[in-house]
């Protein structure tokens, strides 16, 4: 456990002292601000419309018009920015030749992997926390239901956790940062394409199987405000599987 914290601490410190994190965070906020603003405008328009019609339809739902849109954009941006941040986790160690330092220190491959995962999660979740400031700031002007917002953010934390684990696995495979980013992107996008396969497989039992493998269904459920065991299990399994595979790759460094 000591090793996990030492490695995670070093990685986080180096990330937060490097311009990379701030560059990515800056670019993310530009995209988020633009779209969030548009969402608010749409919401204002829809609300005005509903008022004119006498408000019988209950008015526009801020969660779906503003927050859901914001959250899907955050998710899209995270696919790219997490891939860019997690590429450093192992490729950097290999390029610096510091992997030998980690491998000759009294820490296990599991500790190294968990330390890296923790650092990656902290960095990615720092970005998610920044994106949470948008709905939070709205609290000053409007009252809304916390429930679906919190469940959406739970989903967002879990799905970025998957991107981190996938990116970490990709970076453990290669010494090239470019290749690592490309692999991470392809793996992340593949996660989403399972949904397309699910739609192309109408007959049971395949449609059921692919439905459970579809990251889209699980994520949308979280956005809708439903936290299901199936969803939690799915995201946890992806993170655990990728961490396990990375641990095997790290361990195999000894055998090559």
């Amino acid at each position: 456990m000591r090793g996990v914290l030492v490695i995670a601490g070093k990685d986080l410190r180096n990330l937060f002292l490097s311009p990379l994190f701030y560059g990515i965070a800056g670019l993310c906020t530009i995209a988020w601000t633009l779209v969030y603003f548009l969402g608010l405008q749409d919401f204002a328009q829809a609300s005005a419309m509903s008022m004119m019609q006498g408000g019988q339809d209950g008015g526009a739902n801020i969660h779906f018009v503003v927050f859901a849109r914001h959250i899907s954009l955050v998710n899209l941006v995270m696919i790219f920015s997490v891939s860019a941040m997690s590429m450093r986790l192992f490729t950097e160690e290999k390029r610096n030749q510091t992997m030998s330092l980690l491998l000759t220190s009294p820490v296990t491959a599991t500790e190294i992997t968990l330390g890296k995962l923790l650092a990656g999660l902290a960095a990615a979740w720092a970005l998610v926390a920044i994106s949470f400031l948008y709905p939070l700031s709205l609290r000053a002007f409007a009252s809304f239901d916390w429930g679906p917002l919190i469940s959406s953010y739970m989903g967002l934390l879990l799905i970025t956790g998957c991107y981190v684990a996938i990116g970490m696995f990709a970076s453990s495979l290669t010494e090239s940062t470019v290749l690592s980013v490309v692999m991470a992107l392809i793996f992340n996008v593949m996660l989403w394409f399972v949904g397309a396969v699910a739609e192309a497989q109408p007959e049971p039992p395949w449609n059921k199987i692919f439905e459970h493998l579809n990251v889209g269904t699980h994520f949308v459920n979280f956005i809708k405000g439903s936290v299901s065991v199936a969803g939690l299990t799915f995201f946890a399994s992806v993170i655990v599987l990728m961490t396990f595979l990375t641990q095997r790759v790290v361990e195999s460094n000894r055998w090559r």
Partner: protein
Amino acid sequence: MDMIEVSGLFKSYGPIQAIHDINFKVKKGEVVGFLGPNGAGKSTTMKIITGSMAPSGGSVRVAGFDVFEDPIEVKKRIGYLPENPPVYGDMSVESYLKFVAKLKGVEASRVKAQVEKSIEKTDLGSVRRRLIQNLSKGYRQRVGIAQALVSDPEVLILDEPTSGLDPRQVAEVRALIKELKGEHTIILSTHILPEVQAMCERIIIINRGHIVAQDSLEGLSTRMAGATQVKIKVARPSGEVEKSLQAIPGVSALVKSEHGYAMAIASGGAADGATDGVVERIAEAAVQSRAGLLELRRESADLEEIFLKLTTSEETQTTGGAV
């Protein structure tokens, strides 16, 4: 007590055998030089001892712990400087050493003191707040040594600690390693013979994955002096030549080849003059027996050959600056 015990170590990369049946022991407090040309298998052996690489066969014990069964216990006791110092360019010297100390399991209360100690020993005080990427190669190498020292390990494994340094820095590093003698058990690798002479008590010579000799410094020099080979080529080999050659005192192990003879001269001592005398008599005998001497070649034995190779590379390094 044996601090390091290596027995029957093998390592192959696919069809290439990097090291072959390596056996040696290092006593506590000893400084052992691992000598061999580039590609001899020095780094591979060191990587296996530090537990960062698994061998294809054989075993290594450090302080009584098996590297493969108790890797954590072994790694706690080893400070390792790989060929390239494992440093993070975007960290300052001080924060890097703190990180390594914590990683190596130094207690939180002792981290600061240990970092200070290793900075002092490696004379890095003037650059402690600089980023490592802005340091020269010599300083980086010193940071690498400081990193190996920071956990105050019982065993130090240094892979070519002086490579890439200028002569003054080389002298400094050698002095530092001498200072560390006694406190730590040290294995260092090099392809430079004088380096071993300057720092080590015992030498292990490795070539093409085999240990070709291991002895103390004095033991090796006497053995080296005792083996010179002479090869002659004659136009008309005959029994008469063979007999007269064999009759020369000092000539042993006469072997007949297609156009001549190969023989060893065992002078038994370091006196070069004696060997010269024997060589002279060989030439006389060949001429007097009218065998038609075409060629006389004096060759050093294998061990010396290796040494010669090594000493030549030292010369090119000091004169030409090439490593």
